[in-house]
């Protein structure tokens, strides 16, 4: 079994080869992607998938290190951690600093959170055309990049983009309050927060809409020296995905199965 400090390992493989311990850093504030449960054990969609990978790789033993997104990025690059998961998306520039494996880890739905009256805004270009205001996005967050890239691609129909802080901006509250017209939001979070019966903002379920405009692949980030490990990961995850285990985990943690939309995924 896996705990916060010792990863799961396959009983069979342990004896033969020298088992290599690797550190898997995760953003501990990333529920439902990666977080610590009530007992302090690491869990979340990406963590659970990594646990399956660990099981499939007898020559590796994973240790999950809860940390912040800043430290994860620095630490993986420096080699303190061999791999990090934080709902990271792919950009060309990032491949200079990290190895992106061939196989992605999960999917993440992104959309715009809006008031009911703005239901008709379906994507960023609608949003920009309507000249609506957007909630600030944490600078180290991938959603920021999505909007930024959109803006660069559409210089004459830009969304007003502001960087801010994840903790100080409660997008649901801000949108409902009218402080901003809309916010970029993750489908998984919306499911858990508003749609779920026990979600903290379930009382707002009728006032808000969430219009998903993209599904994006998420990736583990490997240290530059870990090509071999990345290849091993590719082998393992491919099988796991074929066995549809990821779909189950996604339903468990995100309440939806984004793999159904895999054809529409562009990046």
């Amino acid at each position, binding site marked *: 079994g896996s705990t916060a400090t010792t990863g799961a390992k396959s009983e069979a493989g342990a004896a033969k080869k020298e088992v290599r311990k690797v550190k898997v850093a995760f953003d*501990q*504030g*990333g*529920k439902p992607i990666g*977080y*610590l449960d009530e007992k302090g054990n690491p869990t979340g969609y990406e963590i659970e998938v990594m646990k399956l990978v660990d099981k499939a790789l007898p020559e590796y033993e994973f240790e999950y*290190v*809860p*940390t*912040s997104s*800043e*430290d994860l990025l*620095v*630490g993986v690059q*420096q080699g*303190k951690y061999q791999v990090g998961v934080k709902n990271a998306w792919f950009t060309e520039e990032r491949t200079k600093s990290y190895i992106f494996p061939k196989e992605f880890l999960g999917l993440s739905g992104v959309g715009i959170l809006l008031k009911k009256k703005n239901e008709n805004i379906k994507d960023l270009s609608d949003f920009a055309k309507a000249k609506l205001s957007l909630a600030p996005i944490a600078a180290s967050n991938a959603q920021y990049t999505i909007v930024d890239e959109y803006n660069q691609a559409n210089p004459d129909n830009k969304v007003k983009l502001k960087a801010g802080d*994840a*903790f*100080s901006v*409660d*997008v*649901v*509250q801000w949108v*409902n*309050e009218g402080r901003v017209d809309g916010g970029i939001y993750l489908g998984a*979070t919306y499911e*858990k*927060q508003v749609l779920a019966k026990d*979600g*903290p*903002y379930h*009382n*707002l379920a009728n006032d808000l809409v969430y219009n998903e405009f993209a599904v994006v692949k998420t990736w583990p980030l490997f240290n530059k020296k870990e090509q071999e490990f990345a290849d091993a990961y590719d082998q393992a995850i491919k099988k796991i995905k074929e066995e549809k285990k990821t779909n189950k985990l996604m339903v468990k943690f995100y309440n939806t199965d984004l793999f159904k939309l895999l054809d529409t995924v562009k990046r």
Partner: protein
Amino acid sequence: MQTYFDSTYIWGALPQLLSFLHVTFMVVGQSVLFGTILGFILAVLKLGTSTAARKIANGYTTILRCTPSIVLLFLVYYGLPAIANNFGAELNHLSTSIYVVITFSLQFGAIMSEVMRTAYEAVDRGQYEAAVSVGLSPVQAFRRIVLPQAFVVALPNFGNSLLELMKEGSLAYTIGLVDIMGKASLIISNNYNSHSLEIYLALSLIYWILSILIEQIFSKVEKIFSKGKLVIKTT
């Protein structure tokens, strides 16, 4: 307001936060201890006669004071093991709290050295002269006469730095050490970033009570040590 505000979150968060208070205490306690010692050494160098030592102490203070905490933390967290590696020591398994304590101690030392220097200089030189003239050694004169008087001067600034340190928990969180500040962040993210106002209010409540307690202690100590002192009173 009612739509978003739910005071049950405050009461719910309090016990969770309190159970991480010992981490805050541990980090602050150790950093204050080591930082004060370091600050004292630096202050001695600054007040000493050796120009080289003074320059080093001043340079250290400048750099440490001017470095953003998070950068310093990364320097310590990644730099220290790298340096140790060169000497054949393996530090990667050290607990993160040690790095946090080292970072805070280095920074606290720089700040305390200025606090102590000014406090020392504020005590009239005649006090020291009188002390050595009644046969106290310079060390005794310092400890018995100058130090208690300087202590009163340093106390409010020491309080400033101590409270500042206590609140730096978000920094520790950066490398995964969870104190009450970090716990607050975790609670918030476990609620999917909602109701953070309530959690932060709970956090403030704890911090506020702590700071009142600390101030009470400080003002008691200050009273004891400022016996015989006349303060400026406008008429």
